[in-house]
């Protein structure tokens, strides 16, 4: 246990009697009580997650736009308004996914990227390699001095404004996938981004590490419920959002992980890393949602990663699965033969039994409403 890394909120989690787990080398809260209660708090009111294990990395230099046009699979030319954010995969030359990330544009020579915890060192090394090799001359600065809190739910923004009243005017009209940065008197330099990993409205807030415990406690005082990685997983699965390392990794093409929408091939002259491999290999599988069917009113188990999916056109595999608290059904993402489509019936092998499941379009749930149906 002593080797695990701690976020600046670690002592706060322990004081809240969180159940802690090793998550990619970080000692993180999986729940503070019932993870289902935490899930419902986010869908119906407001919950918050410590995501300070994720890494903020700042990029400065005149060739920043040129760098990102080369380094990532989505196209930063979509970012024209300061504060605009873009979700993208970072690919290796073979077209596999090194990481998925969000890049924020603040000025032509000033970008910020937030990457996953377990991949941060690998990403920073890769960015450094591309920067040196291409002669982009950027300064790349990992920001371990920042913590990140995701406040999510239909009432999340209102509760954040109660804690940070001076940010209300600047963020009330902020559109989804946009961010603003500015100093606030109470907590120092903060960044509020209207992003998240739950399918609900809210902010992801970058706060100085030294101030984050006070910020967290102020949010608790406003009735924001602390939520752990358990609820984060059921929420992101319902919202149809991929988890790096589970739904895709260095060996998986984004085209086989439901991420084709993030790969921008419109400009034929933009030779980003991995493009030639993607174009040569194409898409080999379809990434779909599954809902386990009930027999005599009850399901035969819970869908989990690595369970085998049997279809009329061959086998596939579940990449992420869980019990959905919002739907009261077992749901999953699966990589299946390309001919399988929403509406099809397939079977999933659970404990040597073949149980029927329906193929559905993702997401399952968005903004508190169930979208997918059997």
């Amino acid at each position, binding site marked *: 246990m002593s080797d695990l890394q701690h976020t600046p909120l670690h002592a706060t989690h322990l004081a809240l009697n969180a159940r802690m787990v090793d998550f990619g080398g970080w000692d993180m809260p999986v729940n503070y009580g019932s*993870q*289902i209660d935490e899930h419902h708090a986010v869908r119906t009111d407001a919950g918050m997650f410590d995501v300070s294990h994720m890494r903020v990395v700042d990029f400065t230099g005149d060739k920043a736009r040129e760098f990102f046009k080369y380094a990532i699979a989505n196209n930063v030319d979509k970012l024209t308004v300061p504060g605009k954010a873009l979700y993208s995969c970072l690919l290796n030359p073979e077209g596999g996914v090194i990481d998925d990330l969000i890049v924020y544009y603040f000025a032509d020579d000033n970008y910020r990227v937030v990457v996953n915890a377990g991949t941060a060192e690998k990403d920073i090394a890769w960015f450094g390699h591309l920067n040196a090799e291409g002669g982009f001359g950027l300064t790349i600065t990992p920001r371990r001095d920042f913590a990140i809190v995701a406040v999510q739910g239909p009432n999340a923004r209102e509760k954040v404004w109660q804690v940070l009243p001076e940010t209300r005017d600047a963020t009330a009209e902020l559109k989804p996938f946009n961010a603003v940065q500015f100093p606030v008197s109470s907590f120092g330099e903060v960044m509020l981004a209207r992003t998240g990993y739950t399918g609900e409205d809210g902010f992801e807030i970058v706060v100085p590490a030294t101030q984050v415990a006070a910020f967290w406690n102020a949010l608790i005082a406003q009735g924001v419920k602390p939520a752990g990685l*358990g609820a984060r997983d059921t929420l992101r699965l319902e919202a149809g959002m991929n988890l790096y390392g589970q739904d895709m990794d260095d060996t998986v093409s984004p085209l086989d992980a439901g991420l084709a929408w993030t790969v921008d091939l419109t400009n034929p002259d933009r030779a980003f890393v991995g493009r030639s491999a993607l174009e040569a290999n194409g898409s080999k599988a379809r990434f779909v949602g599954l809902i386990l069917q009930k027999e005599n009113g*009850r*399901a*035969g*188990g*819970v869908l989990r990663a690595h369970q085998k999916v049997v279809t009329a056109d061959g086998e596939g595999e579940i990449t992420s699965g869980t019990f959905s608290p919002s739907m009261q059904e077992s749901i999953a993402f699966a990589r299946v033969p390309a001919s399988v489509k929403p509406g099809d019936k397939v079977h999933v092998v659970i404990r040597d039994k073949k149980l029927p499941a329906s193929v559905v379009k993702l997401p399952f749930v968005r903004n508190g409403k169930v979208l997918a149906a059997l």
Partner: protein
Amino acid sequence: MSIPADLKYTESHEWVRTESDGTLTIGITDHAQEALGDVVFIELPPVGKTVAAGDAIAVIESVKAASDIYAPVSGEIVGANDALTGTPDQINGTPYESWLFKIKPAADANTDRLIDAGAYGTSIGE
């Protein structure tokens, strides 16, 4: 963490109550339900099934994980709490009332797997 003194336990976190007719009633401990988190699915063995000590004979799934439940002794399944499969979250609220199955021990059943409340408490670091 609740560990009633009148029950026996296993190191795999089952509780075992000896009934007046000699049958054993089995569930999972408070410690086990807390470690699992919110329970959402239970699969029980069929009544009449013959089981050996240590066999995985039932399954409890929480939101986050699936967990096998083991037969603490050899014998025959003589009861299964089918009502619980419709309300699996009862296990989180009342683990010692939420029994899973009953075993009639075999005549030569070995009870070495069963430990008392003090030993169980020690095994989970209480």
